[in-house]
C-alpha cells in the first residue's frame, strides 16, 4: 500500500485536460482508467462501435455501388477516393467495421467460452481430463497460428463463418491454459474445499466459488485478444480465405490495394482502420489489466511514473 494514493501522481497528467466538468468526470473514473492511453483506447473503441451501429447513416454511398469514376484520388464527394471498380472507399471502410468488429468480438467470446470451459474442466478434474485437453491444446500450440488457420479455412472453403471457425480452432488453447492454471491454484483453497464438503456439485463449485475468481484475468486476456482476432480475421480475408467479394472487409480491401500500388488510398484507409481498432482494444486490455489486477498495476504504474 506504499503507493496507494494513485491520485497523488495524477496532476502530471491532468493539466493537459481542460474544463471542470471533464475533470470531474475523469476524477470519478478509477485511477487506471484516467491514463491517456486508456482514455484514447476508450474513445477510439467507442468511435468504432458507433460506426458499427450507424454505418448506414454515416456512409455517403452504397458500399457495393460501382457508379463513381474509377481510381479517383481522395477529394470532395469521395473523401477516401474510389477503388478499381468505382466504389467509395470511405463507405466501404465504414461498412467494413460492421464485418470485422462484431466478428472479432464474437470470436473472442467463443474462444473465451470454449477455452474457459475446457480449461476449467481440465484444472478442476485433473487426471485424464486434464491430460486429454491440455495435450490437444499443446498440439494446436505447436502449429504456427496463421498457417493452421489458413489450413482450416482452406479445407472448409472460403467464407467468413469458416474463417471465424478457423481462428477459433487456433485461439481457444490460450484461454484453456490460463483457466486451467487459475483453477488448479484455486481448487484446493479452503473456500472451495468447504463448499465441496458442504456437498456442492462440481458444477456448482465451479460456478459459485471459482468463476468469480478467474473471470477477471480471463476478461483481460479476452480484451487483449480482440486486437489479435481482428488481425487474424483480416489476414485470412487478405489471403482470400475470409470474406467473399464483393463484401466490404478491411483485409480484402488491403489485398485490393496491393494490386494497385500507386493508388495508395485503396489500401491505406482500411489498413488504418485495422490499426486503430487493434491499438484501441490493446490499450483497453492494458487498462483493464491494471484495473483488475492491482498487483501489476502498482508495479507497472510505479514504473511508468518513474520513467515519466
Amino acid at each position: 500500500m506504499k503507493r496507494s494514493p494513485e491520485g497523488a501522481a495524477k496532476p502530471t497528467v491532468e493539466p493537459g485536460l481542460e474544463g471542470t466538468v471533464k475533470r470531474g468526470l475523469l476524477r470519478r473514473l478509477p485511477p487506471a482508467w484516467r491514463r491517456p492511453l486508456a482514455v484514447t483506447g476508450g474513445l477510439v473503441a467507442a468511435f468504432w462501435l458507433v460506426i458499427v451501429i450507424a454505418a448506414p447513416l454515416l456512409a455517403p454511398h452504397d458500399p457495393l455501388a460501382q457508379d463513381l469514376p474509377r481510381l479517383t484520388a481522395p477529394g470532395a464527394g469521395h473523401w477516401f477516393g474510389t477503388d478499381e471498380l468505382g466504389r467509395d472507399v470511405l463507405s466501404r471502410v465504414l461498412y467494413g467495421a460492421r464485418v470485422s468488429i462484431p466478428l472479432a468480438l464474437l470470436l473472442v467470446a467463443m474462444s473465451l467460452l470454449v477455452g474457459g470451459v475446457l480449461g476449467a474442466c481440465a484444472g478442476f478434474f485433473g487426471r485424464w481430463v486434464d491430460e486429454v485437453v491440455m495435450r490437444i491444446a499443446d498440439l494446436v500450440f505447436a502449429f504456427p497460428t496463421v498457417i493452421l488457420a489458413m489450413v482450416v479455412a482452406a479445407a472448409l472453403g472460403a467464407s467468413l463463418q469458416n474463417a471465424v471457425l478457423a481462428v477459433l480452432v487456433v485461439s481457444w488453447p490460450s484461454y484453456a491454459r490460463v483457466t486451467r492454471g487459475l483453477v488448479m491454484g484455486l481448487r484446493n483453497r479452503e473456500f472451495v474445499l468447504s463448499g465441496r464438503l458442504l456437498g456442492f456439485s462440481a458444477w456448482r463449485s465451479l460456478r459459485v466459488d471459482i468463476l468469480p475468481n478467474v473471470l477477471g484475468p480471463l476478461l483481460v486476456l479476452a480484451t487483449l485478444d480482440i486486437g489479435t482476432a481482428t488481425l487474424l480475421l483480416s489476414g485470412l480475408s487478405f489471403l482470400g480465405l475470409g470474406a467473399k467479394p464483393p463484401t466490404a472487409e478491411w483485409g480484402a480491401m488491403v489485398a485490393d490495394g496491393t494490386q494497385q500500388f500507386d493508388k495508395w488510398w485503396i489500401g491505406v484507409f482500411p489498413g488504418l482502420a485495422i490499426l486503430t481498432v487493434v491499438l484501441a482494444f490493446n490499450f483497453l486490455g492494458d487498462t483493464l489489466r491494471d484495473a483488475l489486477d492491482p498487483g501489476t498495476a502498482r508495479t507497472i504504474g510505479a514504473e511508468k511514473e518513474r520513467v515519466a
Partner: protein
Amino acid sequence: MPRFSAGSYPVALPLVAVAALALSACSGGTSASGSSAGKTLVVDTSFNLKTADPGREFEPTGQIVDKALYETLLSFKGSDVTKPVPGLASSYEQSADGKTLTLHLRAGAKFADGSAVTADDVVFSLNRVIALKGNPSFLLDGVTVTKTDASTVTLVSKKANPALPFILPNPALGILSAKTVQAHGGSATATDGAEKYLNTTSAGSGPYTLTSFNTNTQVVLTKNPKYTGSDKPTYDKIVLRNVQAPTQKLNVQRGDSQIALDLTSDQVTGLSGGLKVDSGASSDVIFLLLNRNTKVSSTTANAKFAEAVRKGIDYKSLLSLAGTGSVQPAGVIPSTFLGALPASEAAGRDLAGAKAALTASGIAKPSVTLGYASDLTVDGLSLQTLAERVQAQLKEVGITVTLAPAPTTTELDNYRNGKEQLGLWYWGPDYPDPSDYLTFLPGNLVGLRADWKAGADPTLTALGDKAATTIGDDTRKTLYEQIQTRMNASGPFIPLMQPSRNTVSAASVTGVAYNPVWTIDVAALGAK
C-alpha cells in the same frame, strides 16, 4: 564520411544512410545517357523464360528472345497476324486438299557463322522440334517434313491443315544450323543434348546472336553482322531484363530502360516524361461460360436464361476496367485474327430485352454461382475485378450471382471437368489462326467444359468440319464468321473482352508493335 561513422556520432548514421540513398537514387537518372550513344536498347519485362532452345521453348519471354535469334520459314509483319509473309522461305504453295505445303527457300540466306541455310537445316530443325516432344511439338502434330531439292521443303500433314502457314512463324519453329547443333550434342531425336549449348550460343540466322543468357536476371543479344534478311536491325545490343511491373514503370520513367512491356492500363495512365504508350488489343479473349448440364445447374442450361445474360451484360462498362486499347470481340475469335466477326456484330446491352428473356425463361429469382480464378490476371486485368462488375450488372437484370473465387489450381479443375455453373475464363491462342478456336465447338475440348456435347448442334459441327479442311483465306473467313454468328445465337459462351496490351517506350524508339505471337520484335525497332 568515414569520420562520421567512426562511432562518436551514432545519431549521424541514419542521416548518412539517407543521404547515400538519395545520392544513389539521383545517379540512376544519369545512366540513361549511355543508351543513345552506344545504340543499346534496354527492354524491361517480367520474365517467363525457361530456355533459349527453339525446340523446347514456348514461354512469352522465350518467344521474344528466339524471334531475334532465329529466322522462321514464314513470318508476320508488325502486329498483323492475318497474313503470313516470307521469312527464310520466299514463297509457298498449299495443295487444294490442304495437306501439302511446299516452301521455297530464300537464296543467299546465311547463318551467323557464315554458312549457308540449306533445306537440310530446315528438315533437321523441324524434325528436331517434333522429336523432342517438348512444349512446342504440338505445333507440328501429324506433319512430315521432307526435302524436295536443295532449296525446296515439303510439309505433309495427315489431315488437312490450312492453319500451317499461320503456325510456321512461331519462333519455336526457328531454323538452326544442323552442323553446329550436331557438333554440340544435338540430334533430331529425343536424346538431343544441345539445350545447354543453345543457352550459351545461338545457332541461327536471325538479326541477333546470343551474348549472355540467364533465365532469372537478364538476356543480352548482340547484332548479327552477317544477317541476310531485308530489314537490318538498328540497335547494336539489346538487353532484356527481368523486372516486375511497378519497377518497370519507375525504370522507364527515369530513362533506365527504353521499353517496358508489362504495364497495366491503370499503370500507364499518368506516365510522364515524353514516353510513348502503344496500346493494342491482346489476343486473349475473356469469356463467360454457361454450363449446359442440367445436373450442374438447370438455370444456366436454360436457353432463355443464356439470352438474358448475353443481353444483360454492359460490355462497354467492362471495357472501361481494362482501359484504352481493349476491345470487345464480336465472337470467340479475337478481333485481330483472320475470320473475326466485324465489330458491328458484337453484342450490346439491352436491359429490357434481358428482363423479357428472363421472364420467358420461366425461372423466378434465378441464382447462379460464378466460378473464377481469383489470383489470375489476364494482361494485367484481374478476373476478380471483372467478376465483381459482372455480378453487379446481372443484378440489375434480376439475376443473383454468387461469386465463388478460388486459387487457379483449384478452379481450373472445376472448369476442365465442366463443374462450373457460370465460369469466367480466357483463351490465349496457341497460334494466330481461327482453327485454334474450333475447340469451342460442341464435343470439343472447351465446348465440353460447358457440357456442350457432340451432336448438340449438328449444323455447327458440319460447319466446323468444313472450316477445318478448307483452304483459301476468303472462304475460311466466311465459314468462321458463320460459325461465330451461330455460336452467338445459341452457344454457351459469351465473349466479353480482349484486354489491352501496353508497350511503353522512350520517345527515341520507333517501330513498336505488339504481336500476339512474340510480343515484340526487337529487330524491327528503330531509333530517331
